[in-house]
């Protein structure tokens, strides 16, 4: 990494053009540009509106069930014999993952803007389920784009979305996974600009989405800070989160970015391994432009986007949020990766030791905790974001372990 001058604060981005260093921006068709500007203006006014914040706070408490606990994983800690491991229990949120934090914010914003039709993309289905849930709650029309490959491997979530009243559209174009679902959602948005709100599920897309989604997810890190101070009287020494697009990770990290004694680790999906098919955009990609922003992308030397591979449908996006790309270059966050095998192992370890079945996505972060915690002193405080629960992954794990359900 080239040494770069460090900014006074790591928390001031993006700039007015939506850039985090060279990353981010607004690389969209002209048709969408006026909508994005309008969204940004509306978001700024909502952010400063105490009534909006109060409404969001109330739903967070009574509908999502926040704050989520910061749980000391005692048996996992004993088993590893090193750092003291805490789990931020985002899997206990209503709908079972961190995705709902962001969806709540965006749906309240959509209501404020008078939009009646909500579209979303989903990979694992967590974001789709969260979006379908809030649309049911507020009586909004909901259309979820999901790659046909993911529809097949996340059947429980597909059925949940349908029960909630959403239309699930299997996307057959391109590689038929998350990136194609995003393309299709963007095409829908361009075609239905007058009444449609695009609820993006991660810190990707054109400005202001990466900033807005981060802000809605930062409740994770804000709570963690206060909870850790309460539990231990000091800040944690390290943070871990899995990185697909990077929303659960940035939500945990952002409130700690200026606490430079806190070591921060994002964990990408290494799939079959970094030399094989994987979804580690930072480790294996290069800067490029996709879905409205500049960031690290998996692509060939001609700039054609390559499919990410991960056992986890929520991590196989070939890009990563632009703020992560910047945090990587500037060296504030270190990005590691975990393979499919490591994730499946971590999934089983946590299930057996703590009685908590993690989402396969979250299991990638846990895999790195299993690897690193044993080598750290017992007074090292480690927080890992348990971004979602693993019920949706049970059929897939059963198949992998050779069990017929």
């Amino acid at each position, binding site marked *: 990494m080239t040494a770069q001058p460090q900014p006074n604060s790591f928390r001031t981005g993006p700039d007015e*053009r939506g850039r985090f260093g060279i990353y981010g*921006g*607004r*690389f*969209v*068709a*002209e*048709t*969408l*540009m*006026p*909508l994005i500007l309008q969204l940004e203006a509306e978001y700024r006014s909502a952010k400063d509106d105490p009534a909006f914040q109060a409404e969001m706070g109330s739903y967070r408490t009574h509908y999502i069930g926040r704050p989520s606990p910061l749980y000391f994983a005692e048996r996992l800690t004993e088993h590893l014999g090193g750092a003291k491991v805490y789990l931020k229990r985002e899997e206990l949120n209503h709908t079972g993952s961190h995705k709902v934090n962001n969806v709540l914010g965006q749906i309240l914003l959509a209501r404020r803007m008078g939009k009646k039709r909500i579209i979303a993309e989903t990979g694992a289905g967590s974001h789709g389920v969260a979006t379908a849930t809030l649309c049911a709650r507020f009586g909004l029309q909901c259309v979820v784009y999901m790659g046909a490959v993911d529809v097949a491997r996340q059947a429980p979530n597909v059925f949940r979305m349908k029960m909630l009243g959403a239309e699930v559209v299997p996307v057959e*174009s*391109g590689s038929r996974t998350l*990136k*194609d679902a995003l*393309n299709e959602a*963007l*095409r829908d948005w*361009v*075609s*239905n*600009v*007058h009444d449609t709100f695009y609820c993006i599920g991660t810190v990707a897309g054109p400005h202001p989405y990466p900033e807005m989604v981060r802000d809605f997810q930062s409740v994770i890190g804000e709570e963690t800070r206060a909870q850790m101070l309460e539990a231990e009287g000091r800040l944690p020494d390290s943070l871990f989160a899995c990185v697909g697009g990077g929303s659960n990770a940035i939500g945990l990290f952002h409130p700690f970015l200026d606490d430079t004694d806190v070591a921060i680790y994002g964990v990408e999906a290494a799939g079959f391994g970094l030399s094989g098919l994987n979804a580690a955009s930072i480790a294996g990609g*290069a800067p*490029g*432009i*996709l*879905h*409205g922003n*500049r960031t690290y*992308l998996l*692509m060939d*030397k*001609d*700039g*054609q*986007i390559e499919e990410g591979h991960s056992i986890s449908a929520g991590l196989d996006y070939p890009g990563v949020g632009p703020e992560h790309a910047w945090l990587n270059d500037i060296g504030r966050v270190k990005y590691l990766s975990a393979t499919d095998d490591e994730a499946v192992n971590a999934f089983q370890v946590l299930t057996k030791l703590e009685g908590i079945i993690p989402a396969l996505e979250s299991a990638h972060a846990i895999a790195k905790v299993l690897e690193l915690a044993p080598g750290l002193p017992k007074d090292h405080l480690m927080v890992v974001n348990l971004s979602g629960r693993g019920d949706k992954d049970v059929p897939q794990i059963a198949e992998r372990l050779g069990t017929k359900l």
Partner: protein
Amino acid sequence: MSDRIGARFAQTAREGRAALVTFVTAGDPDHETSLEILRALPGAGADVIELGMPFTDPMADGPAIQAAGLRALAGGETLVKTLDLVRAFREQDQATPLVLMGYYNPIYVHGVQRFLQEAKEAGADGLIVVDLPPEEDEELCLPALEAGLAFIRLATPTTDDARLPMVLKNTAGFVYYVSIAGITGAATPDFTVVAEAVARLKRHTTLPVAVGFGVKTPEHAAAIAAGADGVVVGSALVDAVRSSLDGQGRATEKTVAAVTDLVAALAAGVRRARAAA
């Protein structure tokens, strides 16, 4: 800089008609056939050529152009090969303007300066890059103008009067009016609404205004050509390519003719438009 685009629109204006702007995807269905198609377009009645640079994730395109891009990529088309096509076309045709159309990532990865220099040398006249709005002009638009390539911008139904001056500011060659808020090849536009939009654009610019998206038949072309300076047809042409392929997706002896026959019919539609009026 030789202004082939300006000269061509001046010529069609003198002839009292709109220009026919044809879009085909480079390397579709394969590199050689695509060069044959390209070379046959002017003779069939194309006034301006848009050559699509294939991309895996064309977010503004409908199924027809998506599929054409994937056919080309599967056949091994690359940005370098696309520039070879331009060069080969230009060897035999000095007059027909050729505009490269695509998405920013392949250009960015190739290197902006390198791309601009190679595209200019190959004989391209302009660029249409869908995912670069005026807010990102420093990326490619300003360097392109500097390098002597026109940067043709899309104006859309969502571009209001307040935004229009910004959209038109660094535009050169012509203005591409997107007839619908939507993707290529989808809905057919309401021609009355389009005519009003073209009139509005012409109050803001002296550049020629070409209209595209959803124009599929000679009748559509004629309806648009009554008021616009150019009519762009894309999805219908790449669909003609697709329909001509064999069971394995390979070109047949019908492929080039499938495109040129449709171009000839569209050209007749464009010529009929004002003759009838």
